[in-house]
């Protein structure tokens, strides 16, 4: 059996799955001490369900903890940021466009060295021993242990990053180093930023993972632990010690993946209706459609891929105007249970409209008995119209797609949705994110700029796929189950006609008895 836990801003959800069957599920408030909150959720669900610790094979966790550390500027280490790319980029040091408070939190220790490659594999410049030595001496003198290294075109040739990393490791044996090529994708500054953010979290991640594994060990849980990534795949807990930044934005992804699992639908619109917002996302082949805008984490531009989510101000706590024509975006949020009319409060919310319509039994329905029929009907029409219009905008093409409703506010939809070819409100819709965490697989991704003149298209795709596969295996996937889920080819304007950026994403099942699992258990 598997346990999936999703730690959100307000709620921590947990589920136990036996194969495809949901054995138990709980919803608890998120605690300030996240590890304490996760273990409490774990204890409750095991006690409630009567499932024995020994029956649990794996634990999967989705957490916003590392994103929050960046956003709130806490638990971050000093980082030495090394860029290899001179003589290009003089006067444009690493972190040049960062918010001042975040750069200060990391110390703004930046180094620029000669080296790197050009788009066609020609050397941009040679590495220089004296520069490398000077940087190492300075880093050692400052006592910095966390180091990020990025070099020009490293997704195509990572040798300069590896060389400099090895030199640092030899001089500072306890250094923790992030090489940017592991974050794939072209765009030096964004890739470098991802590497620096990751590096600033290494020490924190180490502590979180250790304390968590300890807490599990104390409970006699000997199973491996996995953490969700932003693309809906998993990494082993030990991998998080090296790549904590890959957990950014895993929440919406897990909700979409959970909706996919609960309905078996591979292509659908998913609407997650909470207390304040409805998050609309799109499932394509069982995975979230990705947003194509630059992703900003805590004010820093990064190259992380995030799901394409349209958030609208409509939830179970949204305020309703006295004529029923305006709903949201203001919401009483989690105070619904004291401020809503049916709960003895004074604020007219969407939940009160629902109760007044007679479609749900909640709180004290006499409190809404005086609401006019017109108001109730108008407000219901407004709610449905808001959802219909926004779902329509997320639909790819004129394609008729089913809609899956998840989240606590899903009950607001009482009259079907015109925008949906078919409407699904699965059982256990409230804990879709935890289910999404529990079912995730392991992925890997790679990207290269290739010329189809030098290499055939098939050979180029095979080469990039092989690199992505190696990454997935390293992250804990079973090599024999790996398949490519996304192949993207982007021709490059103003260059040789055959120049193309090829990106491949693969996924596979969790390897059983793998090195990583043994290490974790």
């Amino acid at each position, binding site marked *: 059996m598997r346990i999936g836990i999703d730690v959100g801003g307000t709620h921590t959800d947990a589920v136990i799955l036996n194969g495809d069957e949901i054995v138990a599920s709980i919803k608890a408030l998120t605690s300030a001490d996240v590890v304490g909150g996760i273990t409490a959720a774990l204890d409750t669900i095991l006690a409630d369900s009567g499932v024995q610790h020994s029956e649990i094979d794996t634990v999967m966790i989705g957490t916003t903890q590392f994103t929050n550390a960046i956003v709130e500027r806490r638990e971050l280490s000093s980082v030495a940021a090394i860029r290899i790319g001179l*003589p290009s980029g003089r006067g444009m040091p690493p972190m040049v466009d960062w918010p001042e408070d975040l750069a200060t939190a990391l110390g703004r220790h930046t180094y620029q060295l000669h080296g790197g490659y*050009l788009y*066609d594999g020609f050397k941009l410049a040679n590495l220089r021993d004296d520069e490398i030595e000077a940087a190492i001496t300075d880093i050692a003198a400052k006592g910095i242990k966390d180091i990020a290294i990025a070099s020009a075109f490293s997704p195509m040739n990572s040798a300069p990053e590896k060389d400099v990393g090895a030199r640092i490791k030899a001089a500072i044996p306890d250094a923790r180093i992030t090489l940017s090529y592991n974050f794939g994708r072209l765009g030096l500054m964004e890739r470098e930023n991802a590497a620096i953010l990751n590096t600033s979290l290494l020490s924190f991640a180490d502590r979180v993972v250790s304390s968590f594994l300890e807490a599990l060990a104390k409970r006699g849980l000997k199973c491996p632990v996995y953490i969700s990534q932003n693309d809906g795949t998993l990494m082993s807990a030990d991998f998080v010690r090296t790549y904590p930044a890959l957990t950014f934005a895993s929440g919406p992804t897990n909700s979409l993946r959970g909706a996919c699992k609960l309905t078996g639908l591979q292509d659908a619109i998913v609407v997650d209706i909470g207390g304040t917002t409805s998050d609309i996302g799109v499932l394509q082949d069982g995975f979230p459609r990705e947003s194509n805008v630059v992703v900003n984490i805590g004010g820093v531009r990064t190259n992380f891929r995030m799901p394409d989510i349209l958030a609208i101000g409509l939830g179970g706590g949204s305020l309703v105007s006295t004529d029923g024509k305006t709903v949201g975006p203001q919401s009483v949020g989690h105070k619904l249970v004291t401020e809503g009319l049916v709960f003895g409060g004074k604020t007219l919310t969407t939940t009160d409209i629902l109760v007044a319509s007679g479609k749900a039994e909640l709180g004290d329905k006499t409190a809404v008995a005086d609401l006019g029929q017109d108001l109730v009907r108008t407000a219901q029409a407004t709610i449905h119209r808001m959802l219909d219009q926004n779902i329509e905008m997320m639909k790819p093409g004129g394609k008729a797609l089913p809609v899956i409703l998840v989240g606590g506010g899903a009950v607001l939809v009482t009259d079907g949705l015109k925008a949906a070819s078919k409407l699904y409100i699965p059982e256990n819709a409230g804990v879709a994110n935890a289910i999404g965490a529990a079912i995730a697989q392991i992925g890997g991704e790679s990207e290269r700029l290739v010329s189809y003149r030098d290499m055939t298209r098939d050979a180029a795709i095979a080469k990039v796929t092989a690199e992505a596969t190696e990454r997935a295996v390293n992250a804990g996937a079973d090599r024999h189950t790996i398949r490519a889920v996304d192949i993207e080819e982007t021709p*490059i304007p103003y260059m040789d006609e055959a120049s193309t950026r090829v990106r491949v994403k693969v996924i596979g099942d969790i390897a059983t008895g793998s090195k990583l699992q043994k290490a974790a258990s």
Partner: protein
Amino acid sequence: MKINTHHLDDLALGSVFLATGGGGDPHIQQLITHQALKQYGPVDVIDPQSLPDDAYVVTVGCVGAPTVSLELLPSVDEAAQTLEAFEDHVGRTVDAVASFEIGGGNSMIPLVAAVGRGLPVIDGDGMGRALPEAQMMSYPIGGVRPTPAVAYDYAGNFATFSTDTTETYERHIRSFAMAAGGMVMTAEHPMTGRQLKDTVIPGTLSFTIELGRVIRENRGQADTLLEPLQEVFAPSIYGEVRQLFIGKVIDKATRIIGGYDIGEATIEAFDGEGPNLALNIKNEFLLAKLGGRVVASVPDLIVIVDYETSTPINAERLRYGHRVAVFAIGCPNFYRSEAALKVVAPRCFGFDIDYVPLEKLS
């Protein structure tokens, strides 16, 4: 007027709007400009009319593949060094620096060159928008020769050019750029103050900052953007603004032909009712047809913004499912002259239609 670091967000936003889908993301150009203005102070912007007829002006900018500059970053001193190499080559000093193209990142590189050499920058450019080929600039259309010119790479290597026509110059410089890592800075199309006054699209630098401010202050759903846009464009050299369409992209297919990103996009109304809007792309959005009827064409401007945020979207990033609003803006009168239409009319891009100015289309 002086341009300072606090103008750059608006300049970048306005320049992406005027890039009409081309030009790439100017983030890196904005950063380098920010660093240069921080280091050297604000840059003086001068009205082209204030230049003496015998002044000597040169255009400075980046040439190459924008995708490459995502890895091969420019240096703060590179633009001024390009200018110095040019002055050495021609054996005289330059009085002011001008922009090739206000649409996209090359709206800002002249500021970096000018401030690094203590020179003013011209309030104006050679396109008033973005266009895919150098011979479509107002300077060569008005008879300015492309050379003598200098192209300067990331390591300080440079090449000098002497060619007859801008078309030949463009071919040569692109080969050099490819050999030099994919991106170079150039100083080219040198001209006298008189030639500049006759050929420049005037006022576009200060206008782009103003346009950026208007878009920034009207962020949010694009259905409220038309009126503020009309207010800012109406008294300018552009004039007419129309909202052509609101909907979502249901098809987009482009491929690289001869180094250009060429293809089409189709946009459907949110409710699926009525005819679709079809767009033709060659790096920029060039032709818009509603149910087969032309509703805007090059050299008039066609601009796509994100429906939710009103952020302009470039053609490379436009994709299936994108929710957008499409606007058309009349081009400056220079581009409606016979000489200009010889190189920028729809037929020059392979569309078999005559150019009809936006305000004459129904």
